[in-house]
């Protein structure tokens, strides 16, 4: 049975507009056109010189666990193999010079847009996180400390806030591992609640890339791995961004 919307657009060489969605999703170029190497994706994503504020840096609100694990991974970036991902206010800042395929642009550009996981600006109150990526293994690790404004049950992080942290880590991993752009599905099994202000470690792996989709898995645990907070899987749709035409 043909699934509508995303799934139809993902079929290679599909020439009809998806039913019920004329012109909303573009025809996809064949897989061979996904030529951007991991290196070029990463270097574009992590600009060496920028005035943009990087939110993925330690601040006074980071708990000791988070700080020490951060420094452990920072060491790994020096010996190569791992990259610390910068985290800007908007995803637009990560894809400068690129744009969504024509037909997918929703509304006009507004400067006050923020990426969801940087929505709460007061340090320590919302999402405190940093993602490290290992290109050779298509793996990521996210150090996540939820603040008191992310509460669900009193004293614990809202299930949705963890779902968002998973989606965000999946999203950056999918993009750098294979130009994954849109979430197709998220399947989350919650095991234990994360206390506000404590460190949760998300380990994400790309399991396979098939049929223009990236399949990833994630396990979220305490630092000592004694407590599993959740296990999840995510599927992302590959969609190549276009160069912005110079005008």
């Amino acid at each position, binding site marked *: 049975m043909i*699934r*509508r*919307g*995303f799934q139809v657009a993902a079929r290679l060489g599909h020439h009809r507009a998806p039913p*019920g*969605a004329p012109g909303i999703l573009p025809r996809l170029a064949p897989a061979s056109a996904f030529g951007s190497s991991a290196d070029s994706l990463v270097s574009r994503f992590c600009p060496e010189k920028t005035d943009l504020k990087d939110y993925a840096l330690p601040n006074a609100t980071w708990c000791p666990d988070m700080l020490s694990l951060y420094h452990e991974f920072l060491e790994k970036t020096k010996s190569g193999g791992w990259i610390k991902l910068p985290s800007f206010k*908007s*995803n637009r800042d990560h*894809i400068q010079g690129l744009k969504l395929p024509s037909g*997918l*642009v*929703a*509304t006009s*550009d507004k400067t*006050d*847009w*923020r*990426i*969801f*996981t940087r*929505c*709460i600006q007061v340090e320590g*109150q*919302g999402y405190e996180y940093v993602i490290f990526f290992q290109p050779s293994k298509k793996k990521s690790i996210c150090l996540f400390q939820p*603040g*008191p*404004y*992310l*509460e*669900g*049950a*009193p*004293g*614990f992080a*809202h*299930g*949705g*806030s963890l*779902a*968002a942290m*998973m*989606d*965000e880590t999946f*999203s950056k991993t999918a993009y750098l591992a294979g130009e994954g*752009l*849109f*979430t*197709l*599905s*998220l*399947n*989350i*099994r*919650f095991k*234990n*609640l994360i*206390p*506000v*202000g404590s460190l949760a470690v998300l380990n994400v792996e790309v399991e396979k890339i098939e049929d223009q989709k990236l399949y990833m898995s994630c396990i979220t645990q305490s630092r000592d791995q004694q*407590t599993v907070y959740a296990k999840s899987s995510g599927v992302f749709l590959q969609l190549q961004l276009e160069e912005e035409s110079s005008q």
Partner: protein
Amino acid sequence: RLFSSEKLTQRDHSLPNPSWSKDLRLLFDQFMKKCEDSSWKRLPSYKCESSQRVQDFKTHFLDPKFMNEQTVHGQLFTRSFEDGLGFEYAMFCNDAEKRIVCLFQGGPYLQGVPGFLHGGAIATIIDATTGMTALLAGGIVMTANLNINFKRPIPLCSTVVLNSQLDKVEGRKFFVSCNIHSVDGKTLYSETTGLFIKLDPDKRLK
């Protein structure tokens, strides 16, 4: 009762404010009309819940070691934004049919792919809506599973409708499903199935 005076000083966020789009206001008015014969009820929403239910949670399930400075200043995630910037929503429940409708407008601080809502923001409002559906049926519950299929991206600052339904109860397990549609019902944005577990009164959370 004991906590009602606290509520009087707290703002009910499930009421229109200037950031609400015309679509959202219209839908809200339509559902308020449905409330007139009491088949539907509007659910109030506060930043800091002080209801009996929350007090019960703190008394029975919370290990005192978790109560620290941070938890004292906690507030509900979906209400931690200034008007119009984050989650603008109102939930209406139909007790007889065991379902909830959530009218939702996602603001500019919920962005993912530029111009669209972040998958995680969508997951959050789904968790809130399905969670409420389970909670109304079962009391204090915890999300166990969420399985979300995203069909089409939701444009930032648009208004959508979440329809959540209690499908089945098995002991302490509450099975809920939820769809997200455009206002005119013609576009399906996502489909979700969820499982919530009623907390065991004999066990404290770790």
